């Protein structure tokens, strides 16, 4: 019997739309067969499809690189892992092993950090929603509390009046850095004097220990110079505190917001070509602080709460093609077994998606849909792909930040999550959700438990 040729779906593609078109670049079609030496297909066979995969190697490389970049430019640097970006315990633990503290914005995240073994004084407590009970816990643990609004400032004063020890606090400052939209929802404004007013209150009332100043100017910031503006305003506050009260601020926390190498929706250029390198953010911040006029022995610590830039490219989401369709206007549609329910950032980014199998170099333009019965479930609106058939696999890149924490349990069970260690060994770090697990917290009143149909 003669051996038969490998089959590929017949394709015809119009060449009129020009060579560089909105469907992306040739590099996108290169198959991704392995992650850290582990075959994608083996991972899917072992742990099921879809599947999140984190690379421990990439996480550590990113962290060590960022640390080196800042520490070669500034003497005192401390990173605090932004829990909301990805609070899978295994991922947090890698950052903690590397020396990162924790930055949390809720009681839930706070307790997660404590349970992970982070000492209380190394958990930075941000966010607008802290109850008295939360604040007391943070005070007891000596955690730096970042005050978001005046109501919180007054609550803290009341709570502190019954204590012998002064709670450690910082204020969150918002400001005009030339970036639109301005994040003025959080903290006290610099330009209108609110921030300075809060500082005066704290120092004069003398119930709280003002140890730091905090800002977070936005997320996915593409303009490093905005950080120079922010750092100079923070330094100005610190230096004026020193002048007026003879008090040194021990740290300036510049928050997060450095962009990852993702491609923002609607932008013509690929993120990997246009997003600033971490060196550029570091240069903007550190040269501003170094030249701000602090005494050499009183340089404040620089805290950083970098999230997405440290983890986005360490996370992958792999899945399987369910079906192909032709839409009424002739466009092709490909349906995958993962959608916006687990890939929330599809609303933000044109994620890079690679085929896994070698499918030839002819491509067709298609829309990638998720499996949900909803119009909004679009993974990529326009992408050039080799002819995918049901059963083929794809991998979405740069999904390490915010997707796991913001994923929805909607219509189907959320996938398992695996981390590949430094020796190329996969570890299950979260099992696939189960019906029992999801229903564990549900209660059905007795009178609804029986029915006849």
């Amino acid at each position: 019997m003669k051996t038969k040729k490998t089959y590929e779906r017949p394709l015809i593609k119009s060449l009129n739309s020009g060579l560089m078109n909105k469907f992306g670049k040739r590099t996108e079609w290169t198959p991704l067969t392995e992650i850290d030496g582990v075959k994608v297909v083996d991972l899917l066979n072992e742990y099921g499809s879809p599947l999140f995969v984190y690379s421990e190697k990439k996480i550590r490389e990113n962290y060590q690189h960022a640390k080196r970049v800042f520490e070669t430019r500034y003497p005192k640097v401390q990173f605090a892992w932004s829990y909301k970006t990805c609070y899978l315990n295994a991922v947090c633990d890698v950052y903690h092993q590397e020396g990162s503290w924790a930055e949390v914005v809720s009681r839930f995240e706070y307790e997660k950090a404590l349970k992970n073994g982070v000492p209380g004084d190394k958990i930075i407590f941000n966010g607008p929603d802290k109850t008295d009970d939360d604040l007391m816990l943070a005070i007891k643990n000596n955690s730096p509390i970042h005050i978001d609004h005046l109501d919180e400032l007054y609550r803290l004063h009341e709570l502190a009046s019954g204590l012998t020890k002064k709670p450690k606090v910082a204020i969150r400052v918002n400001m005009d850095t030339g970036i639109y939209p301005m994040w003025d929802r959080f903290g006290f404004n610099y330009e209108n004097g609110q921030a300075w007013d809060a500082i005066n209150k704290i120092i004069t009332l003398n119930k709280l220990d003002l140890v730091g100043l905090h800002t977070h100017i936005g997320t996915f910031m593409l303009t490093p110079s905005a950080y120079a503006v922010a750092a100079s305003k923070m330094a100005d506050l610190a230096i004026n505190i020193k002048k007026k009260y003879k008090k040194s601020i021990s740290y300036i926390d510049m928050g997060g917001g450095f962009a990852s190498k993702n491609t923002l929706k609607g932008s013509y250029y690929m993120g990997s070509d246009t997003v600033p390198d971490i060196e550029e953010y570091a240069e903007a911040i550190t040269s501003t602080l170094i030249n701000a006029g602090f005494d050499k022995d009183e340089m404040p610590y620089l805290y950083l709460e970098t999230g997405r830039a440290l983890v986005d490219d360490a996370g992958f989401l792999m899945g399987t093609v369910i079906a192909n369709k032709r839409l009424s206007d002739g466009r092709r549609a490909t349906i995958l077994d993962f959608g916006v329910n687990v890939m929330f950032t599809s609303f933000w980014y044109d994620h890079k998606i690679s085929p896994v199998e070698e499918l030839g170099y002819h491509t067709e333009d298609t829309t990638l849909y998720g499996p949900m019965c909803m119009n909004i479930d679009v993974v990529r609106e326009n992408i050039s792909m080799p002819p995918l058939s049901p059963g083929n696999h794809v991998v979405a890149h740069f999904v390490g930040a915010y997707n796991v924490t913001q994923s929805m349990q909607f219509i189907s069970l959320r996938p398992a999550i695996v981390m590949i260690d430094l020796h190329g060994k996969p570890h299950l770090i979260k099992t696939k959700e189960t019906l029992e697990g999801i229903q564990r917290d549900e209660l059905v009143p007795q009178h609804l438990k029986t029915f006849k149909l």
Partner: protein
Amino acid sequence: MKLKKDLAISDSGFLFNPSSGDSFSLNPIGVEIFKLLQKGESDDAIITLLLNDYAVDKNTIDKDLNDFKIMLTNHKLINA
């Protein structure tokens, strides 16, 4: 269903429609099917030929051939 008469296709998969000026790129199996359609082969004959040569099942070819013909229509390569 009949392909327009004056369409020119190269072995490398470049297709030109002189009456509209449109050009297209086809993958090898697309070229093969296109040429069979030009010769006036029936769907059944095309499916049998492909089944003989390729590692594929009948349902898949049937579905893909259908889809391919929809695309030819969309690209105005079929006589109305």
